[in-house]
């Protein structure tokens, strides 16, 4: 039932190609650009707000080496409560208290979802910076602020950005489910397609969602490449700096 077999698969894929080349699917309120923008509108704000709150908090806790329990239990709870449930549970609450549309429950749910990975990674990233380096930088006379800004944050940056990336990808993925609670975004194609058993639309929507989340992943990998010091990623080799130094000294 609903399964495509053998030669029918080729026809199915042809239908999908036709779906993508149909100009009607690229314009208006149900077109791909509108849906992508809705999806981004659903995802960007929670991620941004979560980053503004959770990253500095995690960094500070890591710097003071306090709040390990908070960071770890938050991560565990974040993982244990299904994102689907978090998203859906906001709806009856919103209806019950007459908060109005789907946007706020979705926003709150995605915000809650985005915080744990960011907080945990910011915390562990800073905390795991080799204590010898931190101590020697203090010994060199750096103030606490400088230790944080010049040593700990740059060294923890890959881990911090990974946290933001994990959050962002998770939020983009879960924003798909917002369609279930009457929201827009790319999930509309999947949910609407499923309800009328139009699997071409489901498939097209699924491809778009997958592409968007892989793109999100890619953007953050790029951010990481651009912001993390080359000395930390190992892109500069020890040998090279030695040679440059030798050349500079004229050895």
């Amino acid at each position, binding site marked *: 039932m*609903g399964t495509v077999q053998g030669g029918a698969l080729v026809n199915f894929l042809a239908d999908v190609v036709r779906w993508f080349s149909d100009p009607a699917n690229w314009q208006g309120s149900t077109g791909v650009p509108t849906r992508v923008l809705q999806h981004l509108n659903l995802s960007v704000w929670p991620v941004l707000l979560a980053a503004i709150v959770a990253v500095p908090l995690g960094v500070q806790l890591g710097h003071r080496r306090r709040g390990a329990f908070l960071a770890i239990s938050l991560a565990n709870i974040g*993982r*244990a409560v*299904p994102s*689907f*449930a978090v998203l859906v549970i906001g709806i009856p609450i919103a*209806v019950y208290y007459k908060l109005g549309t789907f946007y706020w429950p979705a926003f709150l749910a995605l915000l809650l979802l985005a915080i744990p990975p960011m907080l945990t990674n910011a915390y562990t990233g800073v905390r795991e910076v080799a204590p010898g380096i931190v101590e020697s930088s203090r010994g060199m006379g750096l103030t606490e602020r400088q230790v944080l800004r010049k040593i700990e944050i740059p060294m923890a940056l890959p881990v911090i950005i990974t946290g933001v990336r994990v959050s962002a990808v998770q939020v983009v993925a879960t924003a*798909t489910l917002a369609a279930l609670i009457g929201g827009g975004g790319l999930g509309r194609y999947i949910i609407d397609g499923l309800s009328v058993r139009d699997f071409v639309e489901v498939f097209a929507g699924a491809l778009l969602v997958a592409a968007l989340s892989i793109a999100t992943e890619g953007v953050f990998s790029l951010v990481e490449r651009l912001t993390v010091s080359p000395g930390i990623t190992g892109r500069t080799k020890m040998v090279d700096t030695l040679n440059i130094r030798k050349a500079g000294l004229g050895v």
Partner: protein
Amino acid sequence: MILAQTTEPFIRWDWVWSHLGLFWSRTVEHLVLTGIALGVGFLISIGLSIVALRYRKSYTPITWVTGVFYSIPSLALFGILIPLTGLSVTTAEIGLVSYTLLIFIRNIVAGIDGVPQEVREAALGMGYTSTRMLWQIEIPIALPVIIAGVRIAAVTTVGLVTITAIIGLGGLGQLILDGLNRLFTTPLIVGTVLSAALALLIDYGLVLVERALTPWARSRAAL
């Protein structure tokens, strides 16, 4: 969307007590879907980890491919699979299994890699064959890391199984979905609480398994 009556309480306990049987069967469905995914995923991961450990160069492509699977949202992956396997358990399990792979493989490989070289050399010097070394030295030492991976995979899978309700496979997600469709908060909350409790219980169970399997870790802590 129809607005719920404000006279309706947030949780109707009488409804909860009269539907305990339903909760039980949904929980069992949920456990079966989770169990199959974890079992099959673990077996495939053992195979791929052996390949990755034997042929080092294959580790990057293996983690890359499983990483791509991991980053595709579950609902999208189900949508991609439906034309091939329909609205079936197979569709759900292919999706669920593919999410466990990256977690399992990373932890198995990291665990075995973490075995100190001196320990391996000592075992070789004592005349261990490579098979015996794997079972009696490497796997026991790697066990905490491997179980850490199993815990993450288990908790993640329990959460993902709620989504399979959307493609009509039951489980605790069905309670959430019913609650949503009828704007009836009680099943929604019951489904959420049960699914989170299930995740935490399985997590705790695996901690106990780890303790039972690594008695030396406890005696070392006691010293």
